[in-house]
């Protein structure tokens, strides 16, 4: 049996963590794109589109991410292509992130819209103008802290892609554990690496939130 030094273990984990970062970035940005689209459907005036976005969100928030990954993996397989794990992982995480971001952002738009709606329509603006010049700029500001906060969920969510065989930090943890028989240390290290990725984002989300609250109180 080969002996693994602590450095060997950490190095392998860190190398795999790169894929956690890449997948997180892709999922978050893809999710933001799809989420923006869904948001406009959700808050727009077309009822059918609004309902579609609403049920989309409920579906993705009401089912396990793991199931979504399985369905993407085997569902894309049904279409005929032999799906690589990264593709299924990316697709599922993007669709999942989109649902959560849509819901977060809708909350922000509605929080602003309450007071500002009447003010801006009394100025003779149309719906699109109101959105473009009054509601969205303000909503974007209050949306930043929870959006940053959600990025933490995305990073943690990528851990599940190890189950469909995508090799990232969690998968590497399992592989290294099987080679070293030191689950306590290896999973401890894996947890620490996730913590190092997530905690700064959690903290900045909190700090941004606090700043925003202070700014609001001074109005």
């Amino acid at each position, binding site marked *: 049996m080969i002996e693994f030094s602590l450095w060997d273990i950490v190095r392998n984990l860190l190398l795999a963590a790169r894929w956690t970062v890449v997948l997180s970035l892709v999922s978050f940005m893809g999710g933001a794109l799809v989420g923006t689209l869904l948001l406009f459907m959700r808050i727009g005036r077309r009822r059918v589109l609004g309902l579609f976005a609403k049920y989309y969100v409920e579906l993705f928030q009401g089912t396990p991410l793991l199931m979504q990954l399985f369905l993407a993996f085997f569902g894309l397989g049904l279409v005929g292509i032999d799906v690589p794990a990264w593709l299924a992982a990316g697709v599922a995480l993007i669709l999942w992130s989109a649902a959560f971001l849509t819901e977060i952002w809708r909350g922000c738009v509605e929080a602003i819209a309450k007071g500002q709606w009447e003010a801006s329509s009394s100025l003779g603006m149309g719906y699109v103008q109101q959105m473009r010049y009054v509601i969205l700029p303000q909503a974007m500001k209050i949306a930043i802290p929870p959006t940053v906060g959600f990025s933490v969920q995305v990073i943690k969510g990528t851990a599940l892609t190890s189950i469909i065989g995508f090799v990232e930090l969690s998968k590497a943890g399992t592989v290294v554990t099987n080679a070293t028989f030191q*689950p306590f240390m290896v999973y401890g290290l894996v947890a620490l690496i996730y913590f190092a990725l997530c905690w700064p984002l959690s903290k900045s989300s909190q700090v941004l939130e606090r700043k925003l609250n202070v700014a609001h109180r001074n109005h």
Partner: protein
Amino acid sequence: MFDYAWLAQYWPVLLKGILVTIQLITVGAAAGIALGIACAWVRSLGPKWLRPAVTAYVELIRNTPFLIQLFFIFFGLPSLGLQMSEFQAANLAMIINLGAYSCEIIRAGIQATPRGQFEAGASLAMTPFETFRHVILVPSLQRIWPALCSQVIIVMLGSSVVSQIAAEDLTFAANFIQSRTFRAFEAYFVSTAIYLVLAILLRQVLIAAGSFIFPRRSGR
């Protein structure tokens, strides 16, 4: 293209999985919320020397994936001599996870309590803990109950990964069925639908529990 004939033979497997999932979330929610209340008390009112430990616990759990917490508990802890069954490990992981999230949710509820409530308790000669227990806790929980319900549902859905340590929940059942029937998509499709129904039912149950625990509509 789709084939659901296997349902006729395998529905008892699904049913058993459903029951395990329900069992997990029932125990997990009750114990997790209790842990959350205890931690929220420490972080907002409890002994100062205990606070850093609770803060560390909460931050650690909230910033690492549930899957890794589960693996650490099931594969890692036995090396310290803590042996557990799959079910126990799954449940423990869920409790620890929900404990950390609900701590923060409940703490927000406590912090929204008007100061006069603490003072009224004190002026009636109640100790700080008695005031917390009898005066502060219930209205605080009522304030944040919807958020707590959502968190319990998130934990229920997240519990699908306990199949990875071979705890025999709904997802485990789906895995089992797909390995026997090779109808992977259909098996996951059906279990996804079941999860959706479970989530909707769970929300109803929690809301009903809320109106039972908090008979008054407004908490102030």
